[in-house]
């Protein structure tokens, strides 16, 4: 199915988020052949799920749109969505890789007219919104999805629903017989930009995530604030859909803790500062309390911290919160801990708690896997002795978007060098 001819002069980029897109575009715009693969049905990765960036409070889709334009005009990049790296063998300058493509059940004839979704009655949890709402099982992942093409969830394939969708399509775009497939590529170097997964907050049992509906994570908060999120951009309590009046942000939820994630994820402080501004914009009377160990706003991001501190409805308390309990009637949350500054006990009630959870790097988990080094936390480390495969972005270190792009640009050069060395 795939016309994926490539040579050992090509670069494979794994991951179509901000890092992968950047690595692919930078190399392609310097004249190199690139194959980009992305696991999701759309490119853009985690940033596509964010409402705004800190500190400018601007929409990530703006930069993504530019990157997609760059991609559209480049004849050097070929990309595959719903595609994953399934095996790598060989060495620098001469890799054989296997790519696995999952069935989308929708082919390139899709015009995005939406007829399939109109007739579809089956629903699934929306993966784009971290399962906070339900969508049709024939769906466009989100409005800005690139490529702009529907997806049929595998749960309705082989059912009457699936057939209904297929029959509704005027363009013959739904193919219920699609199967998982693989194809092989020859490439000279590989950029691993597979990104990160939010730390599983259910592991921090004393915070009750997964049990208490009004305890959410920072990535979920982004969806709640987004106009294309589950609540149309209104920040509402998940339990009852009520407006919020008093919200807690718990920093280092699992991070900087040897029982969970020993490292600092670098971005959670700023993410919470930013999310506090979302709240304050929507609810002039809403209080926000940020419980922190250290506020880590590097370089000129300090200005953003200063700005948020000026808001008297945002309170900062230095404390590592020890426990959260839910009031069974109101579903409000009692937050307990020690105020490290005063030594006093904290017992405060909130109607929503946001856990600032950290980033877990995505590793290469397939066979055969190439020889690469990871640090003890699973971040890919650069070993000049093992050139040819380069990490880019959050697979190397937890960091913000600008640093990921910077890192991915560097990775593009490394990948080019592997080809130039031949």
């Amino acid at each position: 199915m795939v016309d994926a001819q490539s040579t050992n002069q090509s670069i494979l980029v794994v991951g179509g988020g901000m890092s992968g897109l950047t690595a692919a575009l930078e190399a392609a715009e310097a004249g190199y052949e690139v194959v980009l693969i992305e696991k999701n049905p759309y490119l853009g990765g985690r940033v596509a799920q964010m409402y705004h960036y800190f500190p400018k409070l601007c929409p990530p889709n703006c930069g993504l749109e530019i990157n997609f334009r760059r991609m559209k005009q480049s004849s050097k990049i070929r990309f595959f969505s719903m595609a994953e790296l399934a095996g790598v063998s060989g060495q620098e300058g001469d890799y054989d890789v296997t790519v696995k493509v999952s069935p989308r059940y929708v082919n390139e004839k899709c015009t995005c007219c939406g007829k399939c979704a109109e007739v579809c009655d089956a629903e699934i949890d929306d993966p784009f919104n971290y399962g906070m709402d339900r969508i049709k099982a024939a769906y466009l992942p989100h409005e800005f999805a690139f490529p702009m093409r529907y997806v049929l969830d595998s749960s309705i394939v082989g059912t009457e629903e699936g057939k209904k969708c297929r029959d509704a399509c005027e363009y013959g775009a739904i193919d219920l017989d699609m199967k998982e497939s693989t194809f092989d590529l020859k490439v000279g170097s590989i950029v691993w930009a597979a990104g990160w997964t939010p730390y599983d907050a259910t592991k921090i049992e004393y915070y009750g995530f997964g049990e208490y509906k009004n305890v959410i994570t920072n990535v979920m908060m982004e969806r709640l604030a987004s106009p294309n999120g589950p609540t149309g951009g209104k920040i509402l309590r998940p339990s009852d859909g009520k407006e919020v009046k008093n919200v807690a942000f718990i920093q280092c939820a699992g991070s900087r803790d040897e029982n969970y994630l020993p490292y600092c994820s670098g971005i959670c402080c700023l993410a919470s500062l930013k999310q506090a501004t979302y709240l304050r914009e929507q609810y002039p009377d809403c209080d926000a309390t940020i419980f922190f160990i250290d506020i880590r706003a590097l370089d000129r991001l300090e200005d953003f911290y200063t700005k948020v501190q000026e808001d008297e409805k945002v309170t900062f308390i230095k404390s590592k919160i020890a426990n959260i309990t839910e009031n069974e009637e109101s579903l409000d949350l009692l937050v307990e801990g020690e105020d490290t500054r005063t030594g006093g006990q904290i017992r405060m009630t909130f109607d929503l708690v946001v856990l600032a959870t950290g980033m877990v790097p995505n590793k290469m988990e397939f066979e055969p896997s190439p020889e690469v080094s990871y640090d003890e936390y699973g971040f890919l480390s650069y070993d000049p002795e093992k050139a040819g495969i380069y990490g880019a972005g959050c697979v190397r270190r937890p960091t913000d978007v600008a640093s990921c792009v910077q890192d991915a640009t560097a990775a593009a050069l490394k990948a080019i060098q592997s080809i130039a060395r031949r």
Partner: protein
Amino acid sequence: MDKKTAVYICTGCGIGDALDIEKLSGIATDDYSIPVCKDHPFLCGPEGVDLIKKDMEEEGINTVIIAACSLRVNYDVFDFGSDKIVERVNLREQVAWSHEPGNEDTQMLGEDNLRMGCVKAKDTQLPVPFKADEAYSKDILIVGGGVAGLTAALETAKAGYQAVLVEKEEKLGGFMSKMKSLVTLPYKELSETGIDDLVKSVEDNPKIKVYTGSSVEKVGGGPGLFSVEIKSNGNVNSEKVGAVVQATGWVPYDANKLDHLGYGKFKDVITNVEMEEMAAAGKITRPSDGKEVKNVLFVQCAGSRDPEHLPYCSSVCCLVSLKQAAYVKEQNPEAVNYVLYKDIRTVGQAEDFYRKGQNDGDIFIRGTVSDVGEAGGKLYVEADDELLGEKVKVEELDLVVLAVGMVPAAKPEVTPRIKAPADTEGADEEGMIEVLPDSGFFATSALHLDYRQGPELPTLKYGFPDSHFICFPYETRRTGIYAAGCVRKPMETARAIDDAAGAAMKAIQCAEATAQGIAVHPRAGDMSFPEFAMQRCTQCKRCTEECPFGAINEDEKANPLPSPTRCRRCGVCMGACPERIISFKNYSVGMIGNMIKAIEVPEEDEEKPRVLALVCENDAYPALDMAGIKKMKWSPYIRFIPVRCLGSVNLVWVADAMSRGIDGILLLGCRHGDDYQCHFIKGSELAETRLSKVSETLDRLALESDRVRYVEVSITDYDKIPGMLDEFMETIEEVGPNPYKGW
């Protein structure tokens, strides 16, 4: 090119239900005499595309107008090669999906869109890439021979390109050669700096030409064609390079300004830089008497995160103090380190090194210094301990180390002043005014650019020539010149090394793209470039002043001297030119003017107002598409024309529209101001400023200034767009019809 044009109308996705296709075809065949006009129920399908291809082969069609979905989709399906002109007319997202099907107004909208497409296809030409007369260079100039500059040079060479490295000191290595040890990934232990090896590999590399004890005296030309003069040992050497990396590093914040921390007052109060140099030289001792040190206190954020000194955080000082505390322990395991801090900022895996400091027994006190003094030959520091909520006094200190921050080497000690234009607010008696960091005249000398808009890279407010964009940290306002390392922003060594490789990548890419005559970011690959009909130039200097990238110099008679390889193809010059002498092959004042003139304006008694909306193609246009995809509805009286940047909007279009009887004009563009989102820096701001001038003119013509409006739209504002548009339509209804209608 001899055009043979055809129109293809897609009737799928609801277009055929919304519009009378036969009538629509009549516009093309009758009004515009385009001989071939076909419709197809599924134009983007294999059959539809074959239909077009067949006509190309058999009929020699080379210009096609695709009246179907938005240009944002099916771009690949309707790509017929670089020798074909393809114009897309949006009948789906912005017509069929956002307006009542079968309605007269919807039909008129579709027809106008097609008219504009036909005119555009007629006026547009295939761009021919710019080719300079002289040969292009792909060599990279790197200014600064510290760790960032050395890395940039080496990475450039490893990719197969030649590098020219210029360092002002006699020796390469920069600050790193003064360092004892490094703390870097994986942040477990101290490691060697490795700087000597790095210097050696640069010096030994045949692809790198090194100038030490040298400075860049002049950079003229543009990407691919930079002519560089390097002063070295009294000689001036010339080099020709394709792109430039500025890695001029940082200087420590001047501790003499920190007398409240005892610096200058007590010999044993030193800076982290002095501490590093002392450690590297051999032994850490008390400067006052050369004796052993046992108790050391580090004052974090000495002058940093302080509005009186450096408001920003220098990112590295926490890690540096932890490292230096480790030196102290290494020298004397019995020694005690105190760290007085606001927040410990060891991000990522560097947290491990903080943990090491805690495990090694370093004592961390969260608070601020209230007093530094001397008693019995030892220092003491008094602080407000935030954790204990009381004052603490740490006594018997041998050494106090001030963790001072980084100031970019680009930042001048005194803000420069330049001659201001007459009547400028804030000018002194001599007519001089402080230059803004934002301009090319602020930063200290490093590059000496021969640019009308200043000799150095514009910087952000603290003097760092960093990008303003989160998504594009290597965005630069001087094409082909990229900042790297600590001059760009404060960063630790591991990041400076990555940053240098990134900047080298951008430099190489710019040199490659320039050699092909194509644009770099954000209009990467664009082959068009502005052409100047110089015989009509009136030397007004607007284009030279307003070009966001300094692409246009002036001669002594104020004639513009365009450097096409510096150009980013935004069209701001085209928007600025009152004589309309600047145009691109596929984008010109005349072309958009003709599109506006193609809009049919109904007579006043038909009560169908018309509004022209000029929209930023990167943000506002996609937002409109999104509103369409969401099947939102808005007024069918508005005609949208996407523009490269609102800064390219020429005011004559407003006049064109008004004289045609169009009732209102809307400009939809990006946020401007401190957190601007315009990817051409000031495009949207310029547009709003220019529009305010039009308002004055309109008032003079007895035309209400309410008829023109600038509206800020971000790409995710699609949910607000229908409301914005409807609100403007209400204003137009109130103002009433344009009196010039029917003239």
